[in-house]
């Protein structure tokens, strides 16, 4: 099927099989490998992206379902090499160890802060519930989000 998807402001036209998941369009066809495949069962959140303003797991959406949509991935956060405040806070608070979950964590936290710029600790935890950090580095991830929320 012919689809047209805008990712991080660039429009891509591709011919894809309906069975292709959005995460594979991003990684394999568009070479945007920032979004990761962790569990591939909808649990881990490493593939989280924002589609038309809504945070979703891109392993549970077909690429054809993103036809006509605006997709945001971790590659679209920094502008001209300038990290966002949130990315900077992840750096400063050592909010990543192996880094595998980080793109998903950043997208979930970005979606949270757009919706609720001053979340409580509980709201931050609840917002990151769909993202698993296998290094169990949650404490510093929450500290990083808090640093931006308080700023």
């Amino acid at each position, binding site marked *: *099927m012919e689809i047209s998807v805008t990712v991080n402001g660039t429009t891509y036209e591709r011919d894809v*099989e*309906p*069975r*292709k*998941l959005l995460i*594979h369009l991003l990684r394999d066809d568009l070479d945007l490998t920032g979004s990761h495949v962790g569990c*591939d*069962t*909808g649990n881990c*959140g490493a593939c*989280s992206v924002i589609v038309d303003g*809504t*945070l*979703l*797991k891109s*392993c*549970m*959406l*077909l690429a*054809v*379902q993103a036809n006509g949509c605006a997709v945001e991935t971790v590659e679209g956060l920094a502008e001209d090499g300038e990290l966002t405040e949130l990315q900077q806070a992840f750096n400063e608070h050592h909010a990543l160890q192996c880094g595998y979950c980080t793109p998903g964590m950043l997208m*979930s936290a970005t*979606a*949270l802060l757009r919706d609720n710029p001053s979340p409580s600790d509980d709201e931050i935890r*609840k*917002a990151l*519930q*769909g*993202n698993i950090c296998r290094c169990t580095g949650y404490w510093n991830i929450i500290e990083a989000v808090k640093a931006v929320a308080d700023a």
Partner: protein
Amino acid sequence: MLLREVEYAKPGSVAEALELLAANDGARALAGGQTLINVMKARAASPDMLVDLNGLPELRGIELAGDGTLTIGAMTTYTDIVRSAEARARPILGEVCATIADVQVRNRGTIGGNVCSNDPTNHLPPLMVAVGARMTIAGAGMVEREVPAEEFFLGVYLTAAGPGELLTRIAIPAGKHDGFAAVTLGADGTCIANAAASVNGSVRVALGCVDAVPVLVAADSPEGVGEAVRAAGLTPPSDIHASSEYRARLAEVLATRAAREAAAR
């Protein structure tokens, strides 16, 4: 994961969706996809065609009528329900939807998908039975029929919405004396056992995870619910998370908790 080859259609009307479903034996409706896409990865389901309902705004939305009845479109997401001012007319709906999985799943998963998949561990089948929801099913020629929730759930993954049919909306009568209790894997994970209760004179409790469909029990008061659950003679399945005996005991405890919560508000 590469899915098995599948055709994809995105109808522009409910009538067109029904025609596609009726014309293709191997077609399945795709709602939020938060269950279906995963079972397709596991090859536990292999539809030949997916009929995507995401282009049908008439299936999405929440209306509150003058008599307090809520009408919720089948494609309404959990997040829509959590955020809806209208849905607060029956507060338990938003409260339970807020505990399903996580933000990403709630943003995409739908009330219709939850009840139509009728996984016995889902939250909404027992809740719909407890609150006395009525399900509207559309079939060939857009003919609609209404089925009470307690007759909608027929078996594991099986509901009254048969081949070539679609659940279009759910009507929920006014009420506020409701409760829900669950023991889950992780904070908001899969239910090991759950119970939804509603008090309207007597107590109605629907138990999830203990049989193929929600089990409805009634009692005069929350104090009588435990005995009513024991009298139901449950023989729930055993699995890695709970033995049959343990799950039956959980059902009794959770039913009482849900009933007390319902009576207290």
